[in-house]
C-alpha cells in the first residue's frame, strides 16, 4: 500500500506536467524585428502589441511636427509616465517649434533621451513608463525617460527600531533607495549594476557594491547565481532571497534582509554586496554570517560600553528565549535534585492541582503565546500589540486561576517569549522560536541529555551552513582576519580591518596615524 502511494507520488512529481498552451511564437518573432521606416506600419505594430484601444492606459497621441513637417506619434502609459512633463517638454516643443531644424533632439527639451530600434526593446521601455516617439520616415525611435511612479515617501524604519542613529528606511522606489545609499557613500567606485532576472514581468535587480573593495570571485558567483534561474516573475526581494539561498528549507537564514540604508552602506563599506529591487522596501546583504544577523546597527552607534551591554543582553536573550522552557521541562521532569528545595516545594505545591503533565502545560502556553503574538500582529490598528499583551496577561491569569496552568509556567513562558523579541532580525527571530519547540520536545524526551544532544547536532549543522561560500560563524571559526566585531566589539579606533572571509581588495580600513 505504502509503496504504491510513494510510487504514485514519484510519478506525479518527477515528470513535468504537460499543458495545452497557446503558442505565442508570432509575437516573439515580431519582437525580434526592428522597426520599419513606415510610420503607419509602426503605429499598427505597436497598437496590436499593446492592444489599443482595449488597454485603457496606453495612450497614443498623433500630431504633426511643425518644424519637420512630418507626422509623429508618442506612445506612453499614462499611469506610469509624468503627463505634465510630456506635455511641457516633448509635445509642446514638437508642435510649437517653427524653426526649421533637422534633428529631434534639438527640438525636444526633455533632458534624458535615447534612441532604439528593436521592437521588443521599445516595448520593454514603454512598459517601464518611458515615452516613445516615432517620426515618419525615421528608422529609429526616440525614448524619453518620463517615468513617474507614485509610492511611499521615505519614512521611518518600522521593523528595525533604534533609538540613536539615522531613522530613515528604504521604500518601494528603487531610485530613492539607491539615492539613500549614494547619500552615505560619496565615492565614484560605488557601482549600481542592473540585471533583469525574470522574463515575463521583467523584474530587475540592482547590484550595489564598491568596485575597489569587492572580491571579484564573489561578485561573479553572485552574478552567475542571478542568471542561473529562469522564472517568469519575481515580484519581491524576499522571494529572490529564498531563491538565492543555498538551503531554502533550513531553519536558519543565511542572507540578511534589512530596511535600513545606513546598515546597507556599512556593509558595502566592508566589501559586501547589496541587492535591491524595484517595489521592495529593503535590501539583501550577501554574504551574511551569524554575527551579521545577530548584530544591530545600534551596537555601533552607542558608545562602546553601552553597545557591548546590549550585545550581552541580546546573547542572554537568545539563550533565555531558546532554553528556558526546555530547561524547565528537563529539570522538573528529570533532574529534580537540581532545584533548590524551597523552589521545588513551591513548584510541586502549585502543580498538585494541574491536570496536565508539565510538557503539555508548557506546549500549551507556548502555542498560546505564539497565537497571541501572531494575532496582535494582524489586528488592523495600532492598538494591536496592546491587545496582544493584555490578552496574554488575562489569559495567563485566568489559566492559573482555573488550575490549568501552574504560575511558574507563566513566568517561564513570559520570559522566553519576551526575550525572543530582543532578536531584531525577523528571520533569526523565527529561527529561534522554531528551535525552541524542537528543544522542548528533546527535553521532554531525554531531559538535559536530549537538549545537549540536539544542541551539539544543531551546532554541527550551523557550522556547516554557508552563505555564498562564507561559513556561518566566520570569522570566529574558521578564523580569519577581521576587526573582531563578534560578541563584543572594540572601540571604533581599533576596528581597523575589513572581514577577511570576504577577501576584499583592500583589507585595511583604518591606518595608524
Amino acid at each position, binding site marked *: 500500500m505504502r509503496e504504491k502511494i510513494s510510487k504514485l*507520488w*514519484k510519478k506525479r*512529481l518527477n515528470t513535468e506536467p504537460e499543458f495545452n498552451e497557446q503558442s505565442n511564437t508570432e509575437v516573439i518573432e515580431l519582437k525580434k524585428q526592428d522597426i520599419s521606416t513606415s510610420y503607419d506600419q509602426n503605429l499598427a505594430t505597436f497598437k496590436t502589441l499593446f492592444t489599443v484601444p482595449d488597454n485603457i492606459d496606453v495612450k497614443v497621441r498623433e500630431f504633426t511636427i511643425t518644424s519637420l513637417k512630418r507626422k509623429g506619434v508618442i506612445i506612453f502609459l499614462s499611469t506610469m509616465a509624468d503627463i505634465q512633463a510630456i506635455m511641457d517638454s516633448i509635445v509642446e516643443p514638437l508642435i510649437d517649434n517653427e524653426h526649421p531644424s533637422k534633428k529631434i533632439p534639438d527640438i525636444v527639451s526633455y533632458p534624458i533621451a535615447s534612441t532604439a530600434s528593436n521592437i521588443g526593446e521599445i516595448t520593454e521601455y514603454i512598459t517601464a513608463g518611458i515615452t516613445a516617439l516615432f517620426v515618419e520616415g525615421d528608422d529609429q525611435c526616440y525614448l524619453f525617460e518620463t517615468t513617474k511612479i507614485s509610492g511611499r515617501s521615505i519614512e521611518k524604519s518600522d521593523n528595525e527600531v533604534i533609538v540613536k542613529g539615522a531613522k530613515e528606511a528604504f521604500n518601494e522606489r528603487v531610485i530613492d533607495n539607491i539615492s539613500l545609499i549614494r547619500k552615505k557613500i560619496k565615492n565614484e567606485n560605488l557601482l549600481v549594476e542592473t540585471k533583469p532576472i525574470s522574463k515575463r514581468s521583467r523584474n530587475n535587480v540592482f547590484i550595489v557594491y564598491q568596485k575597489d573593495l569587492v572580491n571579484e570571485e564573489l561578485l561573479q558567483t553572485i552574478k552567475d547565481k542571478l542568471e542561473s534561474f529562469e522564472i517568469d516573475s519575481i515580484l519581491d526581494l524576499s522571494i529572490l532571497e529564498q531563491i538565492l539561498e543555498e538551503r531554502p*528549507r533550513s531553519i536558519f537564514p543565511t542572507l540578511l534582509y534589512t530596511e535600513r540604508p545606513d546598515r546597507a552602506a556599512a556593509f558595502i563599506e566592508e566589501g559586501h554586496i547589496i541587492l535591491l529591487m524595484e517595489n521592495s522596501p529593503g535590501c539583501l546583504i550577501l554574504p551574511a554570517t551569524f554575527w551579521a544577523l545577530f548584530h544591530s546597527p545600534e551596537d555601533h552607534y552607542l558608545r562602546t560600553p553601552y553597545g557591548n551591554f546590549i550585545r550581552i543582553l541580546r546573547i542572554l536573550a537568545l539563550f533565555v528565549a531558546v532554553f528556558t522552557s526546555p530547561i524547565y521541562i528537563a529539570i*522538573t*521532569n*528529570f533532574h*529534580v*535534585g537540581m*532545584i533548590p*528545595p*524551597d523552589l*521545588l*516545594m*513551591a*513548584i*510541586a*505545591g*502549585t*502543580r*498538585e492541582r*494541574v491536570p496536565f*503533565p*508539565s*510538557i503539555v502545560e508548557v506546549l500549551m502556553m507556548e502555542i498560546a503565546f505564539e497565537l497571541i503574538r501572531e494575532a496582535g500582529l494582524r489586528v488592523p490598528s495600532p492598538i494591536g500589540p496592546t491587545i496582544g499583551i493584555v490578552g496574554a496577561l488575562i489569559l495567563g491569569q485566568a489559566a492559573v486561576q482555573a488550575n490549568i496552568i501552574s504560575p511558574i509556567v507563566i513566568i517561564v513562558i513570559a520570559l522566553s517569549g519576551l526575550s525572543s523579541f530582543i532578536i531584531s532580525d525577523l528571520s533569526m527571530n523565527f529561527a529561534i522560536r522554531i528551535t525552541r519547540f524542537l528543544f522542548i*520536545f*528533546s527535553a*521532554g*524526551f*531525554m*531531559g538535559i541529555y536530549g537538549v545537549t544532544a540536539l544542541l551539539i547536532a544543531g551546532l554541527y549543522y550551523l557550522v556547516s551552513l554557508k552563505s555564498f561560500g562564507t561559513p556561518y560563524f566566520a570569522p570566529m571559526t574558521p578564523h580569519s582576519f577581521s576587526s573582531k566585531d563578534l560578541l563584543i566589539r572594540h572601540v571604533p579606533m581599533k576596528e581597523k580591518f575589513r572581514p577577511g572571509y570576504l577577501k576584499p581588495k583592500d583589507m585595511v580600513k583604518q591606518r595608524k596615524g
Partner: protein
Amino acid sequence: MQKTKTVCSLMLFFVMVILLTGCWDRGELEDKSYVIGLGLDRSKQEGKIKVTMLLANPEVGSMQGGGGSTEKPREIISFDANDFIAAKATANSVISRSISYDLLRIFVVSEEFARDPMFPSTFFEVLKDKEIRLNSYLAVSKEKAAQYFLKNKPRMETRPHKYFQFMVNHGIENGLIPDSTLFRYFQSAERGTDLFLAMYTTAIREKNPKIKREDEYMAGELNATGELDDTQFIGSAVFKNGVMIDKLTGQETRTINILDDTTNIKDILVNIPDPFSSSQKQFAARILKTQSNKVKMNLKGIRPKIYITIPLQFEIMSNPSRVNYRKEKNRQILRKHIADHIEQMNEDLLKKTQTKLKGVPYPLPLFAKKYFGTIQEYKKFNWGKSYLRADIHVKAEIDIVNYGKQTSRPKKVGE
C-alpha cells in the same frame, strides 16, 4: 519534495515517540514524595533495620495567597526493612506518591544503633543509591530515631527541610556541632587513621539538668523553658572505623572545630574566666578564625612530638570587672590569660583523645604524611598507635582586635 516528505514524516514520528514513550526517567515532580530526614534504628528482628521517613508536604507554606492548605506540613512513617533503599518501595503501601531521596538532608541514627558494630555495613549502602548526595548530614540521636522525629515539632519552621537547613547550618557556624556530612564520614572511615564526629541531637529534654557554662552542654541538657521545641542540637558523637564509641560535649566539639581547618566555622561567642576578678566572673568574647593552624611534627623517636599553633582573633564583648584596657599591662595580662586558657583547653582535650578515645577526632594524621617519603614508611610508622604516645604542644597566638567599649564604673550613690 520526496526528501522533505520523508523528513516531515520522520519528525512527526519522533514527536509522537517523544510524547508517548519518553518516560524512562521522566516523572512529574508533584508525583513524588520527598524524604527530608531518614531515621535508622535497630530492629527487633535480627538483620533488619527500622527505617523512619520524614516526608515533607509541598503544599504547606508554599502557596502565596489563595486558599492555603489545611494539611499537615509533614508525614512520618516507620517500619522494619532490610535496607533503606528497598524501603522506598515498601513505604509506598502507606504513602500515596513515589518516594524520592532527592531532597534528603539528614540521616538520624539512634545512639543505640550507631554503637552497633553492624552499623557501618548497613550504612555504606548510602553510596549505592544515586539520589542520596554525599553532602547530606549524619546526626546521632539520644533516643530512637523514630521517636526523635515524632517528638521534634518545630514551632517556627514547620516545613521540615527549612528547619533542618537552618538548625544545622547555624549549629555548624557556631561550632557547637561538627560539620558531619556523609562525605566526611566515608573519608574518615576509608582513611582509618582518624575519628569522625557526628552531630548529637535529641528531642527529649532531661528532667533536672545541671546548669553549666555556656557551651559545656550535651544535647538535652540545656534547660530552656518557655514555649519552644524540645529538640536540641549540641555536642557530637565520636565514630571510630564507622562505629560510635563516645560522645563529646558542645565545648569539646567547638574546640575540635577550631583545631580542624576543614570545617568552616564563623565567629564564635564564648565565655572565658575573667583574670581580673576574684569571684568566678566570666567575660564574653567573640573568636574569629581567619588563618589556618600551623602544625609541625617531629615523628622520630619513640615519643613523636606534635606542635600545633592556633592563630585566633578575639573581640572582647563584655568587661565585668571593668578593667581599664587602655593600660598596656592589663592588655598583656588578658592576652596571656586567654592564650593559657585556650592552650589548656586544647591540651586537655587532646589528652582525652589520646587516653579515652584512642584516636584524634579530626584529620590531623594528614599533616604527618609529609614527613614521609613513601606510603610504606608512613604505614610502618603506624599513626594509630604512635598518636597515643605523642607529645602534643598547643600554642595559641592570640590577637585581640577589639577591647570593646570602655565603660567607666557607674558611680555609686554617696561616693
